[in-house]
């Protein structure tokens, strides 16, 4: 696993990290809950066949304190749209997981020409009272890894401070990622995305970890029903909410096939 190329774009005056690796047609990735404090194998799998481009979401690792100036949903959606453009992803395929999935769906709905083909991994954005998603911000600390990944070790590996990391700033950055997601989604994760799903024309792949303990599997059908473009739903065995962490090969293969 080699390191990606790193560059920064300025979003609302905040230098925002973008990773790029590989060659071939571009494909973008908007990260899920917790963000990407480090490069992950899933992105390498994509980079084997494509130019994978990963802009950090505001407040997520690499996104500085960009979340602090986003006060409402319009601010968030515009930030996501601008990030896609600044990262050079206009018209490319777009993948969004979890929190990033909710934003990728908005971009595809409101600016249809921006997204060629779309892949969503257990996206946030809907809420059904009869079957609510888990509340990721109301968890005992020791319960979080198993909530987000089928194998809790995968979450722990994502979040473990690398050698030489700042012992104070590293944990603050991880809390900030959770705060940024909360700023966007608190308290229910319901962004009223349901109203805009019928605007999505892009062919959409819906990926869901079979052991997702955050987002009920039935939500996949809600997405599939509401999206205007053709869609396909695939369960990922052995994967939890952040399926790209639990099953990087399978998730990447499905996406590569969908966007081929």
């Amino acid at each position, binding site marked *: 696993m080699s390191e990606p190329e790193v560059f920064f774009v300025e979003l609302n005056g905040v230098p925002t990290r973008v990773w790029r690796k590989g060659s071939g047609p571009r494909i973008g990735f908007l990260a899920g809950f917790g963000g990407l404090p480090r490069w992950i194998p899933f992105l390498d799998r994509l980079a084997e066949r494509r130019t994978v481009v990963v802009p950090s979401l505001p407040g997520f690792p690499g996104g500085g304190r960009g979340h602090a100036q986003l006060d409402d949903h319009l601010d968030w959606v515009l930030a996501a749209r601008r990030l896609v453009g600044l990262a050079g992803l206009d018209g490319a395929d777009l993948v969004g997981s979890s929190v990033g999935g909710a934003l990728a769906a908005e971009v595809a709905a409101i600016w249809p020409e921006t997204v060629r083909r779309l892949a969503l991994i257990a996206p946030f954005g809907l809420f059904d009272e009869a079957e609510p998603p888990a509340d990721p*911000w*109301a*968890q*005992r600390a020791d319960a979080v890894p198993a909530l987000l990944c089928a194998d809790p070790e995968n979450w722990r590996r994502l979040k473990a401070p690398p050698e030489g990391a700042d012992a104070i700033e590293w944990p603050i950055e991880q*809390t900030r990622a959770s*705060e940024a997601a*909360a700023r966007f989604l*608190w308290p229910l994760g319901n962004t009223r995305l349901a109203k805009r799903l019928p605007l999505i024309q892009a062919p959409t792949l819906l990926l869901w970890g079979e052991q997702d303990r955050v987002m009920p599997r039935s939500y996949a059908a809600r997405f599939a029903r509401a999206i205007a473009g053709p869609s396909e739903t695939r369960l990922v065995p052995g994967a939890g909410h952040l399926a790209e962490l639990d099953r990087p090969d399978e998730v990447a293969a499905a996406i590569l096939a969908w966007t081929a």
Partner: protein
Amino acid sequence: MKLMWFHLMPYTELPDDFREKHPSVWVDIHSSLFDPKRAHRMYNDFMDELEYAAECGFDAICVNEHHSNGYGLMPSPNLIAAALARRTRETPICVMGNSLALYNPPTRVAEEFAMIDVISGGRLIAGFPVGTPMDTCYAYGQNPSMLRERYLEAHDLVIRAWTETETFAFNGRFNQQRYVNIWPRPVQKPHPPVWIPGGGSVETWRWCAEMDYVYCYLSYYGYKAGKAIMDGFWAEMDRLGKDRNPYRAGFLQFVGVAETRAQAMELYREPAEYFYGRCLHVDGRWATPPGYMTEATQRAGLSSQVARAAGADSTLGKGTQERFAGTAKDMQGIVERGYVVVGSPDEVAEQLREVAKSLNVGHFMLLLQFGNMGKELTRYNTRLFAEKVMPQLRDLFSDWEDRWWPKPMGRAERALPADFVAAPQALAAE
């Protein structure tokens, strides 16, 4: 110094096995535990106790705000304060306070506090807490990432609503109101004294200094844990060139007085263990929601000497879970760690004198009712404190002026609520 009598209004009948059978006293405490007819008694007892404290000569009576909480039955302290305003004559009423970000529009707070100030003839102390995570983010669904900004903006709006004489438009980041013009206006000018309960964040200290507000450290863990926080506060005041007027600060302390220390240990064991064992049993799920704590405070919690000096009971930079986990829950530990000051009147007076001097705190907010303490014991504790402890503390800090105390209307100007008690009897006699 000022000795203020504070009521949390705890539900006093949580079951013995509460800790084992129920995950939390807060947020998702089960409704089956609440008996409205029992609570009818509790509210009335509690209000009797507050009124009794006023009768006994405490400098102020204090109430506060909590939501979905088994140890705090005042979602609206303003309702209680309004009732107290009618049933007391002289005693200032400290509402500690209204969590500003929870009110939409926040002018509601300006209005209700103005009403209390007018009804009471200018006896209100206006407390503005941010509010705990449990109250604000979970029970009230406020976004933790925006809570503080909303709080500060709401504060600005309330102060302007109190002080501006013309109708104005408020064009805030979170609040927009075309016509702000509250009616009634507070008696106290420019506005009632503002007190800020806070944790140990340096931003809050600086803000209190800048605004000339009283900073209150309201921890349930007593003077030993509070020492480092108050030291930090005074060090910051020094840095900012502010004087060490002890009336800049308030401090919460549980107290149990009896004839002897042994008797006090016996009398207050049950209510203290009830409070620390059941009332503070909060599920770790309601740990600090992300963004509730500023990054500066997280940094301080992770790195600073202050947190270490404050020791195990420090709240600095800690989430709810961490805070409640390591605390003492048995009477011995509760007293040893200073959560509750117990003893004979002389012993309590001596200890509190030391605490006040060492923390340099001019306003003590005393919890003389706590946990499931009944009305009789509460009266006993209150009276004994008023008669035997208070006189020994009164002279403290007499060379300082308390610029943050209510300035009521003159006695002659104030209304006297009518006394109708005799009327029905007179009618019945006819």
